[in-house]
């Protein structure tokens, strides 16, 4: 039973060709007791893989639902190219969603689940398209099964197939890999990325797993408390975070208190507990007063006291190893510095030097071009792991 | 998702109206009836004269039956609770794949007419029937004793008829209990019976409460078992009300008695729920 309204002409029929960018402007969502999304501005170029990254409750899923049409914004607009879709019903948007719990129709078999969207739009040769899509996700053998009879990984692929088959302009993925075990998740991450590159659709992937986002996305937007903290390529975000939240949420960071002594030319000098360190100007997000000097643990080099350190640069003696964790690929040290802070240092186990022991006295160093400087008024613990 | 503001009201309306007119309002009618001047009749019409004496008259005259009803219903509920818990527990924890099948079997007797089933009890408990014979041979009963027309028969009938109403809520409650909780108890050195008393039983309380209410309340007002399986010595308040309505036509007394029964039940239920401490029944 397909009603006339279902053969829907979505705004600006796809066949007109030019791929459209997704644009969110000042998008806001307020609920009775709290504001989930605050005046979000976002542009997702057509054909890219975009990740919305953030902890639970940051508003990323709400944003996704507004793009899908399952939630109405309090204010702001959503555009596809030049066409506004802010208030369009979900079934009139060229947007499909892969849900977190898959939301497969339990009373329909795999074929009918995948074919659902096509049938509603009165597409021709549905069977052939379904067959192709099932082959793409390697589920041809399960075509007649019903969702409750399938494993999590299989259901996940059905959900993906069901959405993809409609060739939406934007495919939304709401933490689709959350329920899968590690190995399967890794495999699916690669698979989804491959599919996206192949079909060239715009993918918007919501996740709280920063490794997932960095692996799959061309562009990442880190969200926190309803706003975007920083947006850019994975490398950009990782190497040059602009806020303590991003610094702590993506990977881990050492944040050390310091005061700017001079800021001229392309170098900012900072007094860090008595030692002068320098930071490239384009990585310093504060120019005067106090700040947090940030350095990633894998950039921190340690060497037994007195021995030469590889990196010419900021050299800090007087450290004592307080913890050693052997992680196979690397060794993670906690080093207590003279000013009372423990720094994290990750060293790849190249085998060149013995693994240091707890209690060893060490010198610490890093190359200045890897450091970054963040405003002191930001919470040094923002984005870090919570207390158990 | 977006919804019409008043859709809920419209959907609810027909059912709400039906219940409002044919369930809620009748209670007021009943109250009014209980205050009728007993001199009236169906033909001459009734005057509501706030004849509160109706209540006093009705209660004092039929005190025996009122008390007996509560007593029988209480006893039957207790027995139902024990038997029902056994059955529900067996199905929930010991039945494995046969669960659904056994549940169907619990409901199945329900599908034979209530009256027909109760009549067959009359046959089973008959004086020259198998059971009475056996009990007399075992000298558990005197040669002149009967089962029919005794409280035993009536209560047995009540238990039989209301058992499914006890089993199903109990089962629903027991089924929800996470087996791992019981395992945790035994991991923490609880013996099986302690585990039951401290974990299973408390967790199944909502089911126990629902089951006892769904059993006691209808049983208190029942008269079929009393009529078919008992004698005039086992008359329950339901019999009285029924007769007052149809035979005697004394609507005022019948109404007063009904209201009294309802009031007693409500009072007992409120106390019970408070004591059992469960807020949510449904």
């Amino acid at each position, binding site marked *: 039973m397909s009603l006339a309204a279902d053969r829907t002409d979505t705004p600006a029929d796809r066949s007109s060709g030019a791929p459209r960018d997704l644009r969110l402007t000042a998008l806001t969502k307020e609920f009775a007791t709290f504001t989930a999304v605050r005046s979000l501005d976002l542009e997702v170029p057509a054909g890219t893989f975009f990740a919305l990254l953030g902890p639970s409750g940051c508003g990323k899923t709400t944003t996704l639902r507004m793009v899908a049409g399952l939630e109405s914004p309090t204010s702001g607009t959503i555009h596809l190219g030049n066409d506004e879709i802010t208030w369009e019903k979900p079934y009139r948007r060229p947007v499909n969603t892969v849900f977190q719990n898959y939301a497969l129709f339990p009373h329909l078999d795999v074929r009918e689940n995948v074919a659902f969207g096509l049938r509603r739009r009165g597409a021709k040769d549905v069977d052939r398209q379904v067959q192709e899509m099932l082959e793409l996700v390697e589920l041809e053998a399960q075509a007649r099964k019903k969702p409750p009879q399938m494993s999590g990984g299989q259901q996940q692929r059905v959900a993906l197939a069901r959405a993809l088959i409609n060739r939406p302009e934007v495919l939304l993925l709401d933490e689709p890999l959350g329920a899968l075990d590690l190995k399967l998740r890794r495999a699916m991450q690669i698979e989804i990325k491959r599919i996206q590159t192949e079909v060239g659709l715009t993918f918007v992937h919501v996740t709280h797993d920063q490794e997932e986002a960095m692996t799959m996305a061309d562009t990442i937007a880190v969200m926190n408390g309803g706003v975007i903290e920083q947006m850019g390529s994975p490398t950009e975000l990782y190497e040059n975070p602009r806020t303590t939240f991003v610094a702590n949420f993506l990977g881990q960071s050492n944040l050390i208190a310091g005061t700017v002594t001079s800021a001229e030319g392309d170098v900012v000098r900072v007094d860090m507990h008595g030692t002068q360190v320098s930071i490239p100007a384009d990585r310093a997000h504060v120019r005067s007063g106090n700040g947090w000097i940030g350095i990633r643990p894998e950039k921190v080099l340690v060497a037994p006291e007195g021995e030469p350190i590889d990196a010419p640069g900021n050299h800090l003696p007087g450290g004592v190893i307080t913890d050693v964790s052997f992680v196979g690929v690397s060794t993670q040290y906690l080093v207590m510095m003279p000013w009372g802070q423990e720094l994290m240092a990750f060293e790849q186990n190249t085998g060149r030097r013995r693994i240091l022991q707890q209690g060893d006295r060490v010198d610490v160093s890093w190359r200045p071009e890897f450091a970054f400087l963040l405003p002191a008024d930001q919470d040094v613990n923002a984005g870090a792991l919570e207390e158990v | 998702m977006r919804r019409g503001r008043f859709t809920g009201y419209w959907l609810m309306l027909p059912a709400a109206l039906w219940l409002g007119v044919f369930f809620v309002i009748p209670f007021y009618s009943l109250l009014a009836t209980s205050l009728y001047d007993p001199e009236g009749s169906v033909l001459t019409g009734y005057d509501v004269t706030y004849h509160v004496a109706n209540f006093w008259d009705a209660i004092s005259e039929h005190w025996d039956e009122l008390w007996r009803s509560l007593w029988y219903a209480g006893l039957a509920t207790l027995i139902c609770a024990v038997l029902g818990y056994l059955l529900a527990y067996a199905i929930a924890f010991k039945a494995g794949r046969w669960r659904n099948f056994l549940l169907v079997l619990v409901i199945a007797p329900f*599908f034979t007419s209530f009256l027909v089933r109760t009549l067959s009890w009359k046959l*089973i408990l008959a004086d020259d029937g198998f059971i009475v014979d056996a009990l007399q041979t075992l000298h558990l009963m005197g040669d002149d004793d009967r089962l029919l027309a005794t409280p035993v028969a009536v209560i047995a009938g009540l238990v039989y008829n209301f058992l499914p109403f006890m089993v199903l809520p109990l089962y629903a409650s027991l089924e929800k209990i996470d087996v791992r909780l019981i395992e945790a108890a035994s991991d923490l050195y609880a013996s099986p019976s302690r585990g039951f008393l401290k974990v299973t039983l408390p967790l199944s309380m909502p089911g126990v409460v629902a089951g006892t209410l769904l059993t006691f309340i209808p049983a208190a007002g029942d008269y079929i078992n009393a009529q078919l399986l008992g004698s005039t010595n086992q008359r329950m308040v339901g019999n009285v*009300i029924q007769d007052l309505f149809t035979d005697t036509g004394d609507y005022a007394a019948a109404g007063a008695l009904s209201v009294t029964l309802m009031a007693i039940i409500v009072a007992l239920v409120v106390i019970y729920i408070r004591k059992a401490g469960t807020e949510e029944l*449904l």
Partner: protein
Amino acid sequence: MTGLQRAGRWIGEHLILAAGLLVLVYMFVPIAVVMLMSFNDNSESRNVYAFRGFTWDNWANVCQPDGMCEAVLRSVGIGLAATLVATILGTLAAFALVRHDFRGRSAMNTIIFLPMASPEIVMGSSLLALFVSAGFGGKLGLITIFIAHVMFCLSFVIVTVKARLAGLDGNLEEAAMDLYASEATTFWRITFPLVFPGIAAAALLSFSLSFDDFIITNLNAGQTVTFPMYVWGVSQRGVPMQVNVIGTIMFLISLTIVVGNMLAARRKQPA
């Protein structure tokens, strides 16, 4: 573990199951008796309560007793009508209570629960009181019976459908709309098929309650006779064995429906 301990453990573990099954058997004894008595040849005797001899006569001449089959048909008719109305009204109400938020929702929930827990004698007599005070005292019959039946079936329908509806994943309807189905299509293709088992169960329950009702019906029936009322009437004089035939038939039909439904559901979903 010693042999005795092991035996004790075995008994303990299976005792509960055995006890439970015994209770179940106990519940079926009267049914067995009913079925047995439907074959009872008591043409020679007025005493209804003993098994005399085996005969197919009762089954062959089911409608022989005066007025019985008319009563059965009347009960079936009322049952179907009441089930239809109660199921529709109840399903609508269940949707309202689960899916929509409106003031008075908790009051409604209480009102719905009450009929399930009230003594039938009180419900029946209060309804009679209403009819009498409205002037229908002399016109009791099919209509009043119908009204009463819908009244007490509504609660059971609402509770049953509510339970099924509440367990439905809300994402499913969102997924359907995300996949280009309009609200109406979503309802008919997704919501309704998934709620239907609950509606069917509610309808079956409703019919059983209606067909079997005596106390409320008796008070509000006037001169009309339904099957339970017929049985009550003859219980004083002498119950014809055909009554047991009807009882057996009802039992077998319902059992078939329920078991058949169970098997069909099981085939769709492996445990």
